[in-house]
């Protein structure tokens, strides 16, 4: 069944948040930084928006996916693999822009923050429109809801959920969440170009037949997300505590074979 539950405005503000500039890191480091940010937002309540890319092509597994399911996608079997803490299907991170947005939530809030999916994706869709890409949430496409078997496919980009962004019939943006008691981390992948390791999935540039300039795109997403969430994103860096925590989390969790092979 499709999730159609959507909340009202998700505005947090006016509030000041921290913006971490676009940077490239390894798979385990990227996931560890997002977790360290979730821990920090849980403590402080200050939202964080981050953009990143990947030092090498990487397959990330959804938290509950089995490692053995990789056999279903031979094109990506040679690239490194990391298990996320967020749900959903596997993603080949290669020619993409990745974002994470982490915000405080009231204690006692239950379930996914669907309104955060909705507003973040709207912010990205509006930015893409300035580059000529008409991206719409899957729920607005008029397409039939996917079957249960389709939404069990190995790759996230072959599944469809209500807020996924669709361009010319293809999914170009998917996101997933991890909740703590008082915060939620949402990260997502905007496909820019087809990867050699997932040749069946086009990116926005392929669909537009021209390159998408990430350096121009990111500030527009930031501005749109500022308006939608009521957050004044101030350029900042990771705190010393976040850097320390991320290093610990990287070593103990995301770089550990026990973590990757736990299912």
């Amino acid at each position: 069944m499709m999730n159609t539950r959507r909340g009202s405005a998700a505005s947090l503000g006016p509030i000041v948040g921290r913006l971490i500039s676009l940077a490239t890191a390894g798979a385990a480091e990227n996931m560890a930084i997002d977790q360290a940010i979730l821990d920090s937002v849980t403590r402080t309540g200050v939202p964080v928006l981050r953009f990143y890319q990947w030092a090498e092509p990487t397959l990330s597994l959804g938290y509950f996916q089995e490692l053995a399911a990789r056999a279903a996608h031979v094109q990506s079997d040679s690239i490194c693999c990391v298990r996320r803490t967020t749900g959903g299907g596997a993603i080949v991170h290669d020619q993409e822009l990745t974002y994470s947005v982490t915000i405080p939530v009231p204690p006692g809030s239950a379930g996914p923050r669907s309104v955060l999916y909705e507003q973040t994706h709207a912010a990205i869709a509006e930015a893409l429109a300035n580059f000529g890409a008409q991206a719409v949430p899957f729920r607005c496409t008029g397409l039939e809801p996917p079957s249960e078997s389709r939404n069990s496919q190995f790759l996230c980009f072959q599944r469809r959920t209500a807020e996924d962004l669709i361009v010319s019939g293809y999914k170009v943006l998917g996101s997933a969440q991890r909740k703590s008691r008082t915060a939620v981390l949402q990260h997502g992948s905007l496909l820019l170009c087809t990867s050699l390791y997932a040749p069946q999935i086009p990116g926005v540039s392929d669909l537009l037949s021209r390159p998408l300039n990430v350096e121009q795109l990111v500030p527009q997403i930031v501005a749109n997300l500022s308006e939608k969430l009521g957050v004044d994103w101030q350029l900042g860096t990771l705190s010393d505590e976040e850097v320390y925590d991320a290093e610990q989390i990287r070593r103990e969790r995301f770089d550990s074979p026990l973590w990757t092979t736990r299912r």
Partner: protein
Amino acid sequence: MSRDESKLLYAESHEWVDLAEEDGKAVGTIGLSGFALEQLNDLVYMELPELGRELTAGEEFGEVESVKAVSPLYSPVSGKVVAVHEDLPESLEKLNDDPYEFGWIVKVEISGENSVESLLDHAAYQKQCAEAG
């Protein structure tokens, strides 16, 4: 017959606990409230704790996934896990229909005299849910 939800205690994080005496020991049966299940919408995965694990009130004891969001489950009481509803992760579609009977997740042999004092009664929990919208 299903448990009477008005007789249960609730954590702010939406787990219910049914306190009872079994073989002379205080045992809490724990599940997720109907309100939480409605908010979670379409659970697809659930991870349960191991039998025998010692839990502290407020500690994570499991996780669920819905709409690509992973959320922790928090134990409302302290004690040792003495039973686990092993069939539940394969039958999540039945949870919404019967969250208070079929939907039990674990049973905990309660330790510590004060571990239920911070829990909400049904009326207070209903108020919290109403305020959350």
